């Protein structure tokens, strides 16, 4: 299949790129360590994970009601709520708001949903400048690359690469690879843009139904800038980000930053409940909330796969994934990479589009061990492996059965027949052990880096019988 070829090609390219290998190894080791030391009390961690999972599962159980409540509260407070079934619709909504204000510049805080929408590309085609203000995203925008990690987007780039990039794009600023100076330069460049921009865009970390509050997590201050300085603020979110109560927020805020980067809390936690009120002196006059479905309501239909939607986008799973560490984020070819990407993206776009991702895992379980909301990722990967080759079409997953290969199916049928028939199995083993000298030394990809396994002279079945353990 084409997408198989493409995934393998991208993965191979990354595997043979020493810089990708060392950047990601270094970064993931660091993030794993920082997370570990930020949770010194394993009992506390366990309770926090249980609570966070409950909160998210509860939200999902009541999702339609909570979305309605969120909308009602927001409307009462003056936040305009828009619904979009597809990314295209969502883009259209944003464009509509821009056009109503004759705005030609949109300044963006970090938003994975806006990446999913491919909003920048869409608006640019309409003659609107879309500027990233998160430092990592800004760097990538300069380089023309997508993010490779959901929390640390420019993780694949070295300091020198970034310094070189700045020099190319801003020839008047002297070359520097000093991190503080680079950061200060970016601050100065973007300050003027915050000042000028007529419209700001943000994502949403959590939306509280009880009070109609949009919550944003960040360290840099650009999120606050985008939601304070321009006259219009547009927030875009997937429909699954809603939580029921304000009291649900503290546990999630306690676990997310630590899971993500080992920080006890992020610099800013920004809670927005209305646009500027008549007597207030700053803040946007208009606040919009765009609720995007884009396949989530379909995932919602399945009792097991719904757990995918619990995700709070912390990135801990990919930080701990041995496959992600080696191939990096771009190899996945999806907006969200890593373990969560491997279950989410094939379900959204279809197993015909990303059918390989659920197989690109050893099911080691490192991800599930650290997921703050206890998503059983290996179980869901396994479930998607079933969905991708299922024969009937009675599931809800998009692209179900699209990866079924008649040869592979026959092999497993044969395997199953042999292993469900003990006499046949024993015959097979007996033949294999007697003919073991004829086993080829070269077994495809296995033996390109390993010597061939050696079949034993006597199987365990034989030895068990000889030593008196055998039983009918």
């Amino acid at each position, binding site marked *: 299949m084409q997408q198989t070829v493409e995934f393998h090609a991208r993965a191979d390219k990354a595997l043979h790129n020493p810089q990708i290998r060392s950047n990601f190894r270094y970064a993931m080791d660091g993030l794993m360590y920082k997370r570990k030391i930020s949770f010194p009390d394993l009992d506390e961690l366990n309770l926090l994970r249980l609570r966070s999972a409950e909160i998210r599962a509860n939200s999902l159980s009541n999702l339609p009601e909570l979305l309605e409540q969120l909308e009602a509260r927001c409307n009462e407070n003056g936040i305009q709520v828009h619904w979009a079934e597809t990314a295209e619709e969502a883009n259209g909504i944003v464009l509509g708001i821009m056009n109503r204000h004759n705005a030609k510049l949109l300044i963006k805080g970090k938003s994975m949903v806006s990446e999913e929408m491919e909003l920048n590309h869409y608006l640019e085609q309409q003659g609107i400048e879309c500027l990233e203000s998160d430092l990592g995203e800004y760097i990538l925008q300069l380089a023309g690359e997508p993010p490779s990690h959901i929390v640390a987007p420019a993780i694949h780039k070295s300091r020198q690469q970034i310094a070189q990039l700045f020099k190319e794009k801003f020839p008047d600023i002297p070359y520097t690879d000093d991190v503080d100076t680079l950061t200060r330069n970016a601050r100065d460049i973007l300050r003027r843009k915050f000042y000028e921009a007529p419209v700001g865009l943000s994502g949403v970390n959590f939306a509280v139904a009880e009070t109609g509050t949009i919550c944003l997590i960040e360290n840099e201050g650009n999120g606050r800038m985008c939601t304070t300085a321009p006259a219009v603020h547009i927030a875009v979110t997937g429909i699954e980000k809603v939580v029921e109560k304000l009291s649900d927020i503290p546990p999630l805020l306690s676990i997310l930053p630590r899971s993500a980067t080992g920080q006890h809390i992020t610099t800013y936690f920004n809670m927005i409940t209305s646009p500027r009120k008549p007597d207030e002196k700053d803040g946007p006059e208009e606040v919009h909330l765009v609720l995007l479905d884009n396949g989530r309501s379909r995932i919602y239909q399945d009792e097991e796969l719904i757990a995918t939607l619990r995700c709070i986008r912390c990135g801990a799973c990919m930080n701990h994934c*041995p496959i992600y560490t080696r191939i990096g984020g771009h190899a996945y070819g999806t907006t969200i990479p890593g373990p969560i990407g491997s279950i989410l993206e094939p379900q959204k776009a279809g197993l015909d589009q990303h059918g390989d991702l659920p197989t*690109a895992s050893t099911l080691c379980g490192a991800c599930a061990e650290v997921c703050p909301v206890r998503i059983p990722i290996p179980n869901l990967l396994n479930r998607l492996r079933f969905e991708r080759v299922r024969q009937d079409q009675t599931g809800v997953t998009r692209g179900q059965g699209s990866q079924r290969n008649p040869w592979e199916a026959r092999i497993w049928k044969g395997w199953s027949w042999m292993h469900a028939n003990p006499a046949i199995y024993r015959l097979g083993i007996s033949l294999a052990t007697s003919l073991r000298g004829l086993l080829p030394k070269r077994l495809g990809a296995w033996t390109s880096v390993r010597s061939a396994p050696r079949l034993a002279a006597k199987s365990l079945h034989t030895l068990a019988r000889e030593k008196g353990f055998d039983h009918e």
Partner: protein
Amino acid sequence: MSLRTTYPKLPGRVYFFGTCLVDMLYPEAGLAGMQLIRREGVEVIFPRNQTCCGQPAWNSGYRDEARKVASAQMACFPQDYPIVVPSGSCAGMLRHHYPELFSGTPQHNAALAFSERVFELTEFLSQVLKIELSDLGKPVKVALHVSCSARREMGVAGEHQALLQQLKNVELVEPGRKEECCGFGGTFAVKHAQISAAMVEEKATELVATGADALVSGDCGCLMNITGHLDYRKENLPGDHIASFLWERTNATDS
């Protein structure tokens, strides 16, 4: 099925589920496992009709095929004896995934009852048999590789370690990044061969860096993967299943 918090009293007899990899490639490990148990006075029954836990098909998405094989396995172990398995991965399949595999079928309750009886070998030796081991071997430095299933699905990393630490002449070392997967993953090693190769390369390097004389693991999939690569690299680090290793170190004569 969750990790065990309590263990049963010493049984009079147990079943042994050898696993297909042990059957074909490491039968001495399976034999050693059974002998270790029998030496403690517990009768070990190896049902002749067992074949494979079905995990290869289950992990490939062929659930009907896996179910047929799983059903046949359950029929081999009818009595209410513990089922001891010399593999974290296969034990995990039998204990945690059989109930899922049979969910919504008439065999679901049977699968639940079956999975309750499953023990990984080191768990059984350590927690149920409470085995006491006397080391008869020469001093040796041993690197332990705990499979992801043993560590996370069965929670028996501690049991692997505890058994080896009983051996007075064994210096136990652990590799750097010990919790990271070796890259086997069953069909993953074939389907995503390059990524698997990158993972086993790094795992092997970490193991060699310990300066160990020997590698020990509780899972033959990992063992086959890692020793296959070590051999290819002509490294001088042979590997053994933990059952073989424990039996060799504590058994006075060959049997």
